[in-house]
């Protein structure tokens, strides 16, 4: 599904949080959203998701204006937001449809992918920070949404778990051709995963630069192309600090 933002902005009680953001994501594209803390990345994702309808500007999915929640959109929030009264397995099956067994099987598969096969019966209060985040990832991926919004999905994970899950994400992307918008602070991650990177800057946040990454997948971590893109992204971010 395609996604289009036109001059999207959001004002909270008179103070602009983000302004004039426009971009287009073609079906199956992975868009990275980078920027300093508080520049409005999460706010943008909320607007795209339909949870927040008070934004200015226009958001279109498949060239149709939307200002409501779409069933085909998945959102992984910045916090894990697990339901505390459900155990890990039930948290993952939460959004799934179909009969009980199927849902369980599917959820179990994703839990295994994120390395939590043993933790199905635990309740959220018994999880470590990274485990909770991985449950949230499994929950978001399990519904195979056509548009997937990811708000710093791997921020609480160690370097190696993070790489595994980045690859998991790409696998899902390959199977379902989801369109993704990924907020991240990790420049390596952005360079490894995204087709295009949008760098926001300032407060209120505005689009500072768009960087297109043409390197075909599978990409190689630590390759010289990756390093070049990384440097480019860093450079564009660096400007941002001047105004922070």
């Amino acid at each position, binding site marked *: 599904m395609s996604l289009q933002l036109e001059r999207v902005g959001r004002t909270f009680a008179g103070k602009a949080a983000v302004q004039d953001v426009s971009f287009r994501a073609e079906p199956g594209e992975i868009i990275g959203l980078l920027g300093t803390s508080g520049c409005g990345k999460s706010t943008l994702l909320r607007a795209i998701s339909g949870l927040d309808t008070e934004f200015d500007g226009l958001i279109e999915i498949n060239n149709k204006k939307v200002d409501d929640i779409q069933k085909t959109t998945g959102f992984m929030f910045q916090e894990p*937001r697990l339901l505390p*009264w459900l155990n890990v397995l039930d948290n993952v099956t*939460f*959004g799934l449809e179909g009969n009980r067994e199927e849902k369980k099987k599917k959820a179990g598969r994703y839990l295994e992918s994120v390395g939590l096969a043993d933790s199905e019966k635990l309740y959220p209060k018994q999880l470590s920070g990274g485990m909770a985040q991985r449950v949230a990832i499994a929950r978001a991926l399990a519904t195979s949404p056509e548009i997937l919004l990811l708000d710093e999905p791997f921020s609480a994970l160690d370097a190696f778990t993070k790489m595994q899950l980045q690859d998991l994400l790409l696998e899902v992307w390959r199977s379902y051709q989801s369109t993704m918008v990924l907020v991240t602070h990790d420049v390596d991650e952005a360079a490894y995963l995204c087709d295009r990177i949008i760098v926001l800057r300032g407060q209120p946040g505005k689009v500072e630069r768009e960087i297109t990454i043409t390197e075909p997948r599978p990409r190689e971590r630590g390759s010289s192309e990756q390093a070049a893109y990384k440097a480019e992204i860093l450079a564009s971010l660096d400007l941002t600090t001047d105004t922070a």
Partner: protein
Amino acid sequence: MAKNQSEVSGVFTTGSKSQPSTIKPKSPFTHPLLLGSIFPALLVVVWELLSRSEVFPAYQLPAPSVILETIVGMAEDGTLWGHVGITFYRVLMGFLLGTAAAVVLGSLVGFYKHAEALFDPLIQAFRSIPSLAWVPLFILWMGIGEPSKIAMIAVGVFFPVYLNIVSGISGVDRKLIEVGKMYGLNTFQLVRRIILPAALPSFLVGLRSGLGLGWMFVVAAELMGASQGLGYLLVVGQNTLAPETIIASIVLFAVIGKLSDWVLKKLETRTLHWQDRAAKS
């Protein structure tokens, strides 16, 4: 009740029974049941002594032993079970009815702002009308049969349950509601799968509060032509100046009320095990 274990040991869910070595042995002197009996026991003993020494004359406040005799007497001639049974039945039915009404209205009001504007003011106004004031109205509307008694108790149960549901619902974390919305839940599903579980702690307090009020409304209910029941017993005791009947009915109210509350409290610990509570010191 594993309150003296660490808050992070997750006793409720992973079955620490297989690891008794990690559980500190409880001192028998601080066992909750024992501690809980101290005050009631003290109360009974002091009262008995004061009655024996005639500080409280019998026609004012009979001794606990006399009360016990009265109750045992009623148990022996079988009238006790009639009184307790019928009152219990009325409270139970009233409780179910009142709770059902409160859940429906409370969910609506908690969820829709128009429903709130529409219903809430009237409900809040009715909330402070005393039970005795309802009696003539209920007799008028529903006569003096069982329905009016049950309806009267339901009224008592309704208000605290309603209040707690509404407040519980509006206290539910926006973040969790958004999760539900993202998964395309409709309003009904949202209430059932997110809002009610999240508001459960508040709802359960409402239930316990409501049950207590249900017991209180029994007296008013049984003024409406009852010839059996704890409330009847109390009023007859008051009308015939029989302090032992009055106190016996009070004791029965306390005991049965406590038992019914205990059931709800058990339910509470069962269903709220997922709460990330601090251990009590």
